[in-house]
């Protein structure tokens, strides 16, 4: 079952810019209307229980899309259905079915304890007292926050606070959870813990995860599907498995030879860097093999060799830049 259905979605932002005179100065009152297509005719669907990474560079249109999905912004054109609701017309009804965690925007009352905050959010989402107590008990066990659940939020570490933010967003048992850079500012251990918890929410509670992050580690570990948006258009919509299979086919081979050798480039083999006897070579495994590369120099000349995959981060950067071919 699809929980999100987006068809030909568009969002235009209209701004008025002062017109420049021939002498380079600006007119005081004369304005020119400028239309920016923040989201330009995108379509996609998300199935129940999916973990989707919705990523793109700054200004790509991802934030605008999320705001339209949650009913905060009105689309200029196209159709959106989230959990069967039209977000811009049924925002309040939809809000009972979705949750959101924003790494940079806190929703908890900082002078109060997480427990007091949970009771507050329970009342906001009209949760019965007994059900709320059960839910707090369940989630505090899953997230292991009992130890500091009665301390003021302001005294918690960032990692502990984010865990409590997620619990607050899950109290009303949302069918979908929107994460916007939840791991920002966290140390590697806290990041790892959080990623595991998000996967746990998806697996144990069946919550659909809609994930935005600039941290490739988050996306790689948490999400099974990736949508990359750039300049308001979807440039890639694929499973993480396919992305890795198709785009991680390039290997980086670092070779250290005993003497200086001229390595000839050929189809699938590209010398990225050559300095003295050190070579950095990119090998496209779809076109050639490592054996082929090895044949370009004598193994007797070989001092050291290391083979690594292109980091996913570089691949995503290339896709952002439009070098996805």
């Amino acid at each position: 079952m699809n929980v999100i259905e987006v068809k030909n979605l568009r969002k235009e932002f209209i701004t008025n810019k002062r017109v420049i005179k021939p002498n380079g100065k600006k007119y005081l009152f004369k304005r020119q209307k400028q239309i920016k297509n923040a989201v330009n005719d995108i379509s996609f669907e998300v199935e129940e229980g999916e973990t989707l990474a919705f990523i793109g560079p700054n200004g790509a249109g991802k934030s605008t899309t999320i705001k339209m999905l949650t009913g905060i912004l009105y689309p200029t054109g196209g159709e959106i259905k989230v959990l069967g609701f039209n977000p811009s017309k049924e925002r309040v009804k939809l809000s009972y079915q979705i949750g959101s965690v924003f790494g940079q925007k806190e929703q908890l009352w900082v002078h109060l304890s997480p427990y007091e905050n949970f009771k507050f959010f329970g009342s906001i989402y009209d949760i019965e007292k007994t059900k709320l107590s059960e839910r707090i008990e369940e989630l505090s066990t899953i997230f292991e926050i009992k130890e500091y659940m009665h301390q003021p939020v302001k005294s918690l570490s960032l990692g502990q606070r984010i865990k409590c933010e997620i619990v607050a967003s899950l109290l009303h048992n949302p069918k979908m959870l929107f994460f916007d850079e939840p791991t920002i500012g966290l140390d590697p251990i806290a990041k790892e813990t959080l990623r595991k918890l998000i996967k746990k929410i998806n697996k144990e509670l069946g919550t659909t995860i809609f994930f935005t992050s600039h941290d490739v580690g988050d996306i790689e570990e948490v999400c099974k599907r990736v949508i990359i948006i750039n300049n308001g258009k979807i440039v890639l919509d694929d499973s993480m498995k396919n992305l890795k299979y198709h785009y991680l086919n390039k290997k980086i081979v670092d070779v250290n030879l005993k003497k200086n050798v001229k390595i000839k480039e050929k189809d699938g083999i590209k010398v990225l860097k050559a300095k003295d006897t050190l070579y950095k070579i990119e090998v496209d495994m779809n076109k050639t093999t490592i054996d082929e590369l090895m044949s370009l120099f004598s193994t007797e000349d070989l001092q050291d060799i290391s083979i690594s995959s292109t980091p996913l981060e570089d691949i995503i950067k290339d896709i952002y830049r439009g070098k996805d071919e």
Partner: protein
Amino acid sequence: MNKYLNIYATSFKQESKTYANSLTSVVSFVVIIYIFQQLWRFIYGGNGGGTLINGYTINMMIWYMIMAEVLMYSVNARGVTRAFGNDIKSGKIAYQLNKPYNYYMYQVFSQLGEIMWKLVFLVPTGIIMGLVLLGPIQNFSVIYVLPLAISLLLAVVLTAVIYGTVGLLTFWIEEATPFTWIVQKFQMLFGLFFPPEFFPTWLQPIINYSPVYAMMSGPCKLMASFSWDLFLNVSISQIVYVAFFISLGLLIYKLGTKKVNVNGG
């Protein structure tokens, strides 16, 4: 409505954790009351005796001033405007909009929680100062406590709603606090410093029908000299203005949310 009362209660609880700040504010309140009562004593001449200025004895004038200072100190005008404005400017409002409540009403009740916490300190301090400096109010009866409390509450609700509505202007302009400054100066000039009777006859009806009367002069006059007719008159004015400004705020909020993308989108 229940969830808005919970917002109010949670905000009150949150504010109660910052009691050290509240105590600092009370010290400043005490100093101001003392300075102003000295000033009025000077104006009235010596201990005031039976002097009447525009129908006010010195005792009435100082009780008026105590109530006015309670109202000024309980609602931090710029703070209320900024509470609304900062969310709009920073884009945080976008993340509040996907909650099952009306953001405008959320902020109003949240601000009321803070205000009520301040009143917990300010009202007893004001009463004690008045009793110490002046003694009991003449012809005061215990049955006036409830209507006075109602009038005080309606006044703070109205003041918070007005400054909150000013804060919503941030949807269109970068900084709304200059407007707060202007409104606050009207509130001070026509309400805090002098009762309406101190102004020219032609100006008095304008003041008496203005929001300043409902948010400041009206409840202060009740404190200085209570009458049921005056209470009725002030309450009607307060209820009408609260309803008007809440409706206006909701309308501005509705129009403003369509502009969320411009600021902080």
